[in-house]
């Protein structure tokens, strides 16, 4: 145990001397959280739409007004031909085009279904879906109020949103950011630090010393565990203070979950270090194994349920997935450890597997 | 020596890093074909000086001229005329012996006949014939050292800088290496070598002792020894309890200082009058003394003495 501490202290001293790495490990995540939390969201407003009104009646103008009143759309301009509309979209100056045919008002007042044409720029599929949703919503609303008749809908819907009534996507993204940043710092720093010794040849010296592999590994990873934990807590506090991220659960449970996740992350770094010969390879491997799955397959941004089955399976071995479920559960839903036994078990299992494989590989040398 | 005859001329060269002065007002000359040694502890400023002379580091003040070219003003101009071997024998580990040679030859623009000749020279000099396709990382210390030297000499530079070239190399290889250096000097190449091995410093024509960035002493080894100890004899005292002996000797006014030398004690007398006889007489009777004999100073004695005096001067 004492030798592990000695290694840990030496590692900490090395980190402390490398001021830039230290700053990055502790302060930068918080800074970026601030930046991202402020800048990133999927909520869409001010969608630029151009209108080709071929009817020019009170009704058609009322329809256009309905789009404006929805607060989602900004009328970017008026066009008079298909070619003009094409140009607006090609140049990216408008996201959608509303074409109102010349018989619009007539059709509406005679009880026939009036058809308008909406062209949406599909190149950003994420926003296009949402834009379509908004368009349908506006059209539906307009249907009920135009044409001079107000007909109450037969079935209406009363939505109630739990956990995040204002539907702020920040609330959803922030835990993901925490997972992502923690994963990177833990995995990459651990991998690099060990591989660096390998590269420099000091690895041999250390292994010669009367210190067991376990102590060595413990000593190497402990400092990064502590630093990542500090970083994660710093991010959480910043999120709560600056973004009003609620904290409906208990801090001890939260810290437990974060620690479990970080241990798994460090184990991943360790595993990478047993596979890579040089720091360059270690970094690229860590990026591949840690960063991208955490970004893409963990449910951080893209919903897992919508992915093809094969990827859902792969996602089940991405620790960040369970971390996010647990983190969101604690922070937003106020769940306690009992309710979260599933994800926590998964995190523990992952950590054991990864550390186990690393131990086997290290022992073999 | 005339200006034209001097290979290296250094005049009041200094380098400061913020508040820290690494090299302090260094001035010396090196003649053509001379083996010039830079002796000093780690951190004394040897590598920093060499890097300035090679055009890798900008001096804070002072000038240096290599083969007649002012390094401060025209660092690139000197590069064709110098060879440099760094402390870490910078070779490309993944490249073979052949490839490393080819690489440096390519950088210096050697081709055709000249390349073939120099390649052969490097291989033979290094004893690497037959090892052309061995990767550098597979070579042991001595071989790498010779390969690095060979690569530094490919373009036949008249002046060569060797920074701690024998670090971590076995004694046999070290001796071999110095034989090569002697050969170089004989054929007219000027060699400036830094070292902290005293036995190597003995093999140099002249030695500059560097301490805390300053030139503490300069001269042939014989001159240095004479300067330091002609009037201050060194007496080697042997006894059963060296430490007690040292304490007793220190207490004597005729002894300037003492140091442990293996199991014996070296005592430096304050003046020429101090001898084996006077010393034995001055020692308290209870102490067991087996032998006292005057010895000729070694370079180690000189070095320690110079450093002592330099520190005393610095503190004053």
């Amino acid at each position, binding site marked *: 145990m004492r030798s592990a501490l000695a290694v840990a202290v030496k590692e900490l001293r090395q980190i402390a001397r490398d001021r830039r790495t230290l700053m*990055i490990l502790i302060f930068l995540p918080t800074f970026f959280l601030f930046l991202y939390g402020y800048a990133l969201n999927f909520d869409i407003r001010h969608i630029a739409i151009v209108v080709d009104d071929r009817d020019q009646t009170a009704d058609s103008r009322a329809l256009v007004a309905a789009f404006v009143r929805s607060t989602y759309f900004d009328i970017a301009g008026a066009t008079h031909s298909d070619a003009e509309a094409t140009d607006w979209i090609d140049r990216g100056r408008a996201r959608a085009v509303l074409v109102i045919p010349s018989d619009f008002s007539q059709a509406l007042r005679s009880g026939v279904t009036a058809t*308008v044409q909406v062209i949406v720029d599909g190149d950003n599929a994420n926003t296009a*879906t949402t834009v379509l949703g908004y368009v349908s919503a506006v059209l539906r609303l307009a249907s009920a109020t135009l044409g001079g008749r107000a007909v109450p809908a037969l079935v209406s819907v009363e939505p109630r949103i739990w956990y995040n009534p204002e539907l702020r996507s920040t609330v959803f993204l922030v835990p993901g950011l925490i997972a992502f940043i923690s994963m990177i710092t833990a995995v990459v720093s651990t991998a690099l630090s060990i591989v660096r010794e390998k590269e420099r040849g000091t690895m041999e010296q250390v292994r010669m010393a009367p210190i067991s592999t376990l102590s060595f590994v413990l000593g190497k990873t402990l400092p990064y565990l502590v630093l990542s934990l500090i970083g994660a807590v710093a991010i959480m506090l910043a999120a709560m203070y600056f973004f009003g991220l609620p904290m409906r659960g208990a801090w001890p449970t939260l810290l437990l979950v974060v620690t479990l996740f970080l241990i798994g992350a460090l184990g991943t770094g360790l595993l990478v270090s047993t596979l890579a010969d040089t720091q360059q390879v270690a970094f690229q491997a860590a990026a591949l194994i840690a960063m991208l799955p955490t970004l893409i397959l963990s449910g951080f941004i893209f919903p897992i349920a919508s992915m093809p089955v094969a990827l859902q399976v792969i996602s089940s071995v991405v620790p960040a997935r369970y971390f996010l479920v647990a983190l969101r559960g604690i922070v937003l839903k106020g769940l306690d450890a009992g309710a979260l036994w599933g994800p926590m078990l998964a995190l523990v299992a992952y950590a054991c597997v990864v550390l186990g494989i690393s131990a086997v590989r290290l022992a073999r040398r | 020596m005339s200006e034209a005859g001097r290979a290296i001329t250094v005049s009041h060269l200094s380098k400061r890093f913020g508040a820290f002065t690494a090299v302090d007002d260094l001035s010396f000359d090196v003649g053509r074909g001379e083996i010039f040694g830079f002796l000093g502890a780690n951190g004394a400023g040897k590598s920093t000086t060499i890097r300035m002379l090679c055009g890798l580091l900008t001096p804070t003040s002072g000038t240096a001229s290599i083969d007649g070219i002012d390094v401060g003003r025209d660092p690139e101009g000197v590069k064709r005329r110098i060879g440099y071997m760094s402390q870490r024998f910078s070779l490309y580990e993944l490249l073979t012996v052949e490839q490393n040679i080819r690489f440096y030859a390519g*950088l210096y*623009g050697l081709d055709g006949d000249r390349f073939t000749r120099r390649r052969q020279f490097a291989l033979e000099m290094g004893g690497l014939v037959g090892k052309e396709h061995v990767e550098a990382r597979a070579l042991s210390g001595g071989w790498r050292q010779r390969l690095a030297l060979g690569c530094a000499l490919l373009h036949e530079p008249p002046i060569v800088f060797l920074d701690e070239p024998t670090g971590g190399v076995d004694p046999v290889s070290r001796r071999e290496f110095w034989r090569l250096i002697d050969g170089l000097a004989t054929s007219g190449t000027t060699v400036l070598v830094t070292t902290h091995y005293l036995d190597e410093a003995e093999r140099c024509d002249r030695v500059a002792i560097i301490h805390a960035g300053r030139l503490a002493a300069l001269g042939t080894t014989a001159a240095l020894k004479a300067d330091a100890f002609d009037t201050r004899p060194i007496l080697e005292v042997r006894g059963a309890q060296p430490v007690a002996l040292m304490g007793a000797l220190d207490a004597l006014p005729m002894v300037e200082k003492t140091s442990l030398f293996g199991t014996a004690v070296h005592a430096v007398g304050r003046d020429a009058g101090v001898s084996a006889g006077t010393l034995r007489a001055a020692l308290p009777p209870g102490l067991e003394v087996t032998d006292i004999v005057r010895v000729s100073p070694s370079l180690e004695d000189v070095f320690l003495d110079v450093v002592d005096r330099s520190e005393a001067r610095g503190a004053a």
Partner: protein
Amino acid sequence: MRRRIRTLIWKEFIELRKSPQLLRIVIIAPVLQLCMLGYAATTDVRNVPIVVVDGDRSPDSRRFVEKFAASPYFDIVDEGMAPSDIDAHLARGTAWLGLVLPAGFGSGIERGDRADGSQRTVQVIADGTDANSSGVALAYVQGLVGEFNADLARERGTPLPQIDGRVRVWFNADLESRNFMIPGVLALLLMLITANLTSMAIVREREIGTLDQLNVTPIGRWELILGKLLPYALVGFIDVLLVVAVAVFWFQVPLRGSVPLLLGASMVYLVCTLGLGLLVSTMSATQQQAMMTSTFFFLLPMIYLSGFIFPIENMPRVIQWLTTLIPLRYFLVIVRGIFLKGVGFNILWPQFLALAVWGTAVLALAAARSRKRT
């Protein structure tokens, strides 16, 4: 001079060839990442798990529930007895939405206007954690309800006035997220690989000490720089070809524009990423610093703020202004433009210009900092 550069490039390639691990990663990683992103990256919402609590159990309420069961957007995972059943599902995350049909739903519909409105109201309880998906799911619910209403109205002979939106989606008719994401991946991968590899490679030479050895030779500053950058430019270019091939032939992402234009844009972009790598190397003493700096200071912000996933229009003005400094942003526009819209240089020239300016500036700055003598 050319010989010296050739010598440097030759050396770099020997080292690359002798690092099989690195080679494998540099070739395999892009393809793997492409696959991951290609298949996973979708904000389309499908198979939304919902819980239904039918408090009425009338033919009308069954018909309502049936509409949801039949929809590809929803997946009814449970039918509960009471609204409290929904709580557990939402808490555990096994369902995103709960639908509660009140008792009297069917009769409320029968009696129409004369009935109390609350009987005809379906309560939708949504897990707001994933705001984006919830929002879309809610919109789908509204859509299905609207259809239900229209069906009812038609059956009674009082058709509701309808404004029907005939929607055409351009460039990406199936709204395949993939077509949007994959061209973006190209931009991302190039930056990740070339910037990092380059910066670490240069710093490694500094760490080992061979950089000093190089600086002592008569080689020129630009020869050194080119000798280091060109090999990785080639690696980057091969990655471009690889990614484009996989995107087009495996993922069937439409490539409607000009391939030479795409390759040309890639080359300009490579100047930016390599210059960035060089710049980072001048700021880092160790490989770890180089990696940390390039990833945290440059790559990550660029990934998030370039419009790769999160639309720039949604960002606060100040940050939008900041994003004009990110080369990835312009390259994304070019790549998506060429792949999906098939547009040409006449439309994309502002982006090309921006990239060229950025690349030149970064390279100049980096070169100024890469002196042979410190």
